[in-house]
Every structure is written in C-alpha cells, then in structure tokens.
C-alpha cells in the first residue's frame, strides 16, 4: 500500500498535498476576513463623495487615481504582511505542535515540505490578490465608464472637436482598467514571493517567530533602499575604496533583491504603460531569488534536528 512510491525530491503530488493543506490551514485561520475588509473599502469608495466636476478642465481622472491608490495600497500591504507573517509562523508552529515529526516520519523529503509550505502561502496570496483585483477591476471599470460618459457629454455640450475628445477619452481609459494595471498587481505578487521566500529562510534557523518577522521586514527595507545606497556610494565613495565598495555593493545586491524594480506597480497606478518585457524580466528575477532562498532554506533545514 503506497510502498512503491518514488521518494525523489520535488514530487509534484506530494508538494501539492502540503501546499493545499497549508492553503486550507490559512483559509480556516480566517485570513479572508482581511478580504472582507478590502471589499468594504472598495464598495465604500464607490459611494464616496468624490470631487465635483464642474468642467473638463478639472482633474477628471482624480477619483480613479484615488480608487486605485486605495486598492493597490491595501493589496500591497496585505501581500507584504501576509508573506512575512504567515511564512514566519508556519514552520515554528509545526515544530511546536510536533506535527512536523509526524510529517517528516513519512516518506517526505525536507525540500518537499519547505516548497509545499511556501507554495501554500503564495497560493493564498495569489488567490487573495486575484479576488481583490477582480473587485477593484469591477469597481474601477464601472467608475471609469461612468466618468467617461459624463466627460464626453460635457465636452460635446461645450463644442470640443473630435481630436480633443479622443485625447480626453484616451486619458480617462489609461486611468481605468488596463493590462498595465494588471501587470502592476502581478508585480505585487512577485514581490510577495521573494519576501515570503526570505521569511522562510529566516524561519529555518531562527528560534523566535518575532525575530523572523522583524528581520524579514528589515530585509524588505534594505531591499527597498539598496539601489539608492548603491548610487550614494558610487557618487561619494573615495577613489581608493571604489573596488571594495563595488564588491560590497554587488554582494548586498545579490543578498537583498532590489525591490525598487517592483515599482512598476506605482507606474501602473499612474496610468503608465508597462512593457511586457519589463514584466518578463521581473518574473525571471523573482524566480531566481525564490529558487536561491529556497535552496538556502533547504541547506539549513536539511541538517536541522528536532
């Protein structure tokens, strides 16, 4: 009975069992209450008394901008906090409850356990972001459509010519639901993947969940500012120190991913077009760091004693 199974690493079915269990565990921990709060924010934003539009000269896309700022801000906060807290909590909890003993006493390679846990957390973040994104898209699409009709009617009544109306239409549509906005949401998910992988690495050797959470946030901050720091040292470094500084900065850049690269989310919120190549680059970078941190986690976890 199940004895002839292959115990090679990363068996997809086994990883998916652990991932789905982690996903269910987090769902039943009532994580989706956060989503309910998000829904309320999105719905309430729909009925907010937003600026009156007395003329086409007004910043007519302002209300769309506010809506996107709210929604994307909440999504980013949720993804970041959840990637750190959930990942930091799961491993110590399994050790504390001795659930880990019974799992590792089964033919489960430790790498499969780690990958399953991380996948479960990331799956929940993905599903949550997807639901939030759907809600944002529906509300934003509705508001953008209503605004467009209103502004076009106003422009026509004021005798605008066709090119001017088309320009205004394009400007409103750029602030509505776009593929670039979807790319921005995807970038939030990618960033959460790296943050979660860092958190998992820390939790494999940390003895305190609080320590894991705090250091994870610190690495996030370090990653957010490392590009600025590198630029600062490049400009102000003394000539004799440039080689050392350069090596140091490259080392820091390897350890701490440059989270500023994920600022395409902000660009997407401002209505800018995000090229597909940029999304592909970011996906590749994320895959590199997630694999790197997962391998490091495995390196630590494989020798860990319980």
């Amino acid at each position, binding site marked *: 009975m199940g004895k002839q199974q292959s115990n090679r690493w990363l068996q997809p079915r086994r990883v998916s*069992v652990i991932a789905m269990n982690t996903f269910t565990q987090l769902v039943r921990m009532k994580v989706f209450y956060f989503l309910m709060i998000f829904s309320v924010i999105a719905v309430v934003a729909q009925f907010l008394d937003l600026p009156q539009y007395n003329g086409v000269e007004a910043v007519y896309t302002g209300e769309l901008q506010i809506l996107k700022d709210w929604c994307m801000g909440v999504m980013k906060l949720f993804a970041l906090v959840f990637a750190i807290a959930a990942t930091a909590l799961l491993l110590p909890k399994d050790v504390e409850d001795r659930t880990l003993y019974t799992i590792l006493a089964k033919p489960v390679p430790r790498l499969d356990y780690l990958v399953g846990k991380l996948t479960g957390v990331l799956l929940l973040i993905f599903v949550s972001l997807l639901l939030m994104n759907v809600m944002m898209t529906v509300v934003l699409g509705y508001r953008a459509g209503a605004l467009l009709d209103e502004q076009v009617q106003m422009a026509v009544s004021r005798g605008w010519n066709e090119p001017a109306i088309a320009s205004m239409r394009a400007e409103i549509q750029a602030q509505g639901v776009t593929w670039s906005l979807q790319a921005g949401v995807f970038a939030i998910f990618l960033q959460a993947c790296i943050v979660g992988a860092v958190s998992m690495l820390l939790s494999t050797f940390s003895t305190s969940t609080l320590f894991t959470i705090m250091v994870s946030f610190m690495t996030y901050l370090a990653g957010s500012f490392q590009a600025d720091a590198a630029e600062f040292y490049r400009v102000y470094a003394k000539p004799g120190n440039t080689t050392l500084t350069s090596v140091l900065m490259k080392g820091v850049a390897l350890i701490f991913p440059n989270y500023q690269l994920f600022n395409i989310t902000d660009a997407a919120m401002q209505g800018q077009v995000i090229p597909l190549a940029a999304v592909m680059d970011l996906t590749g970078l994320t895959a590199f760091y997630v694999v790197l941190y997962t391998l490091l986690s495995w390196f630590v976890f494989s020798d860990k004693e319980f």
Partner: protein
Amino acid sequence: MTELAVDIQHLVKDFRVPLRGAKPFRAVNDVSLQIQAGEVYGLIGPNGSGKSTTMKALLGLVAPSSGTCSIFGKDSLKVDSRNDVGFLPENPYFYKHLTGAETLRFYGKLCNLRGKTLEDRVTELLDLVGLQNARERIGLAQALVQDPRLLILDEPTAGVDPIGSRQIRDLILQLRDRGKTVFLCSHLLEQVQEVCDHVGIIFQGKMVREGKLEDLIAVENQTELILQDASAELVKEIQTLIQRDGAAQLVRSGKPRTTLERLFLQETQGDQS
C-alpha cells in the same frame, strides 16, 4: 533467518550546549539494539534517559554523532527508510483545522495513497482504532495509514484514560498478530510487560539491560520446576531431597519471578546510590 526490522549499532548522540567551553551533552551513549520483524520491543527508562532521542535517530529526525540506524536494511537518514514506518510522537497535536478523517487523508496522501484506496483505508482505520477524536487515537491511526511494517510509538498511552490505554494495548497485540513490528517506549511498565517480547532498559544514555522479557525477569539464583500430575508423595520426596541438600532451600511453589517494575528500579536507582 528472520528479517531485521530495526538495527541500531553503537548509536551516540551529542547535543551542543550553548555555553562557551561547555562539553556537549551526551544524550545517547553507544546504544545498540536489534528488533526482529514481527516483535514487540519495549524501550524503558526514566525521563531524560535517551529513549526519545534513540527513536528520533531511528526516524532521521536527529542525525547520529556516531553509529548507525537502519530500518529493514535501509539507512534511517534516507527518506526511503520511512516508507515502512509509522510514528506516533508523545502527546501529539495535529492540525486543528482538520477533522480526524481529513487528518488521515492528509497523511495518506503524503504516502501516495489516492482515491478509493485512501478512502477505504481511512474508513478501516477509523473503525480499527475506534476514533472518538482523541489525539492519541488519531495519532495511532495516522501512524498506520500506509500500512507500515514497523510502528514506532513514543509513550502511546501518555494522557490516555485507563480504558483508552487498554484499547491501545489490545491494538498493539492485534498488530503483532498481524505480523507488524512494534517499537515502543513507555513509563507504564506493566503494559510493557504485557505486550513486549523484548525489552531494553536505557539509563543515562546507556543500555543497561536488554533481552527477551522472559529471560530478563527470571530470578537468576532460583530454579522453577513445574510438575504436572505429580503425586503428593513425589512432591514430599522432592522436598526431602532439598532439605537433605543443606545448601538449597524451597522458597515457595509457583512462578518465582520478579516484576518488570522491580527490575527497572533496580537497574536505574541502584546506579544512583
């Protein structure tokens, strides 16, 4: 020749002490034991004597500092060795978000069981262990989920009421009858005596006595004669012979055995004094 289910050879396990210059703590000191397939082996010892560490080393949860552990000939540090093992830790907790049946399904899937096979197994186990959502019973069922040949039980009756405790004892005997090998450690010496074929006594990390239960609890300087259909004259004649010997004396009739509990206390407390 009977297959070896468990083979532990000269197991040593040191734990680092987080103080500068402090000597490592030796939890297990040169322990060797072998369990034949189909046996019930009881490892007994006081708290902190190294029982759980020995079990964890056998399961690959801790790496031996020296020595080797293997299960059915497979190195315990390899994942493959755990195909044939079920483990119940002391005072187990399981995922609170899962029901008893869901817990069994989860562990079954980890062992590559799927579909009807898994569902049938879950139903069978729920019947077998008479689950009433007690942690230990779920724990026992998850240990059995892939129908392993070896069952490792760390204090299986800890925190269980007397009725549950007896049910677990009966289950162990039932499993032995089905040909399973059971390796257990327990503080309840009477239960160990009731179910085990072999016993090892571990104290301060060392195996101080080990062997067949019947041999261990036999009193060395006494001889037991069990007569069947002996006449009163014959018995009287034997007693006369004993009296005539001078050195030998008849202590009592019956089974001159100590209890496992007395043996255990003798081996452990005797060294402390």
